[in-house]
């Protein structure tokens, strides 16, 4: 049993590795975005395998995840409908980079299973959930949904498939209408009027420990 005394990349080394990767990806058409401490590079579809392989060599040698996002109903989104993101990390675990590709419906992407065997199930899931075909994948078929299931569930135009709730008296509740109040668009079926519930007046009713305050501390 060996000790965990391995060298973890320091912040400086990590920043250098990230910068080196980004520098190599920009000539491929990469567009860099940072948000909080996350770095993402959007590359065009033709260069995705090269981009992933560049990242693999420049220090982000592991792939954590391959997943898709459907931007159909994202407010203010321009551009292609789907994004397939490759979540890559360095072997020490503290550095991460996201390589993104924008695809439209019907477009296909080359597979990266040649670089990472781990991407096998990941790409199959993206295919199952979004319908993005990965060319060259050794075994591209549905992963999670039943074999006779048509459609790609995580697309935004695929309905959630809710069954209305039927009460004994015969009335039924449509869950989507019920939830509309949550979004704030309209009060929905709850008809919530707001305000404190009757009965609970003060902290004396509940004592210490209920709610936000811990022991011995007053109001923030």
């Amino acid at each position: 049993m060996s000790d965990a005394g391995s060298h973890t990349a320091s912040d400086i080394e990590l920043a250098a590795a990230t910068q080196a990767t980004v520098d190599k990806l920009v000539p491929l058409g990469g567009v860099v975005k940072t948000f909080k401490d996350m770095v993402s590079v959007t590359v065009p579809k033709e260069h995705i395998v090269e981009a992933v392989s560049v990242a693999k060599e420049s220090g982000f040698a592991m792939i954590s995840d391959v997943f898709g996002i459907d931007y159909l109903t994202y407010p203010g989104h321009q551009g292609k409908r789907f994004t397939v993101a490759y979540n890559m990390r360095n072997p020490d675990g503290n550095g991460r980079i996201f390589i993104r590709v924008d695809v439209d419906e019907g477009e296909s992407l080359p597979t990266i299973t040649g670089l990472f065997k781990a991407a096998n199930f990941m790409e199959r899931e993206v295919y199952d959930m979004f319908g993005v075909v990965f060319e060259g994948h050794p075994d591209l078929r549905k992963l999670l949904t039943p074999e006779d299931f048509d459609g790609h569930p995580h697309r935004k135009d695929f309905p959630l498939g809710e069954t209305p709730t039927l009460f004994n008296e015969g009335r039924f509740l449509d869950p989507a209408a019920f939830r509309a109040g949550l979004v704030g668009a309209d009060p929905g079926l709850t008809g919530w009027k707001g305000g404190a519930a009757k009965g609970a007046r003060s902290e004396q009713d509940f004592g210490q420990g209920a709610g936000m305050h811990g022991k011995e501390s007053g109001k923030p």
Partner: protein
Amino acid sequence: MSARDLGHAATVTREEQHGEFETRYMRINVGPQHPSTHGVLRLVVDLDGEEIVGIKPQIGYLHTGFEKTMENRTYQQGVTYANRMDYLHGFAHDLAYVLSVEKLMDARVPERAQRIRVALNELNRIASHLVFIGTGLLDMGALTPFFYTMREREMLLDIFELVCGVRMNFGYFRVGGLYRDVPDEFFPAVDQFLEMFPKMIVQYERLFAKNDIFVNRLKNVGVLSRETALDWGLTGPSLRASGVPLDFRKAAPYGGYEDYDFDVPTYDAGDALSRMLIRVDEMRESMKIVRQAVDRMEPGPIRDPDRRISLPPRSELEDSMEAVIFHFKLVTEGFHPPRGEVYVATESARGELGYYIVSDGGSMPYRVKVRVPSLINLQSLEPACLGGLFADMIVNIASLDPIMGDVDK
């Protein structure tokens, strides 16, 4: 099962001439309903006698559509969905989800809440490893250790019930902190558990770790070398059993883990025995973390006081109109994180767990992608089982510790 069922690449048939005999590989189905597959996992196995020449996991029998459902629930309601994915280590999912949303919102979680979260997370890790040991040994035919480990797990579930109100599938973590403070009985209960548990681990080790049958059944079975494990994307204790000391609690600390002093056990053999024994060692390390977290706990608030995230205390609702408005907005709509996409990697009992949350500024997430460890770890079943015996396949599944709720999301 038809050929379409399995994919063209799954057919591993070969007809050979052995003298006058024409032989073929036998394809059998280890179906979803099986006592030893740790849930609804289906394996299609090609056998040459007893030796496995091809194995393909077919999953999806527990697909629940978590991610799509979470897109239709507010952020605070998402916590209830999170811990039903990996139901054995529910707090890991809760923590990962809540950390992601807090990163998006720039919420500041008070220290007491962080320490309680860490303590509960580690206790839950111990509970998960206890089930791993119990059911893993059950698969191999040892019935007794199951009852021993479940006895300890009952003590842990009593502690969870004390704090959260439920034994499993807790709804205790909130974005910004916790639902409520721990009661006073929590500390003596934890002390009692931490006092008697080391002796129990010694008991387990006496039950199986030195047992010849156990060791012979697991030694050099399902060997995953370092390169194979890394190539196939393995994470978690199974990876650490193959010689890679990667633990996200140390590598990229989150939620207060940088404060605690613990080791990351690593084995080099990469076989099923190391994968079993490493989790016993991890239980010891988790105990250390719980001890430190509980000892260093100071009184204080347990939620981010920012009214945009946390409900105001009831007493304020009488005096302040603002508090009433915040309360109303939070209860009817929930809070609105800013637009953006965020990911936090955490370490669950099974490996790297992270929630990638895309927010469009509304009160419900636009997209939640869960990077589940068990789905990726399950791919390593193929290199581990190929060339081994059929009976070893059961051992390999048990040692990789997949949870089908996690795999199928």
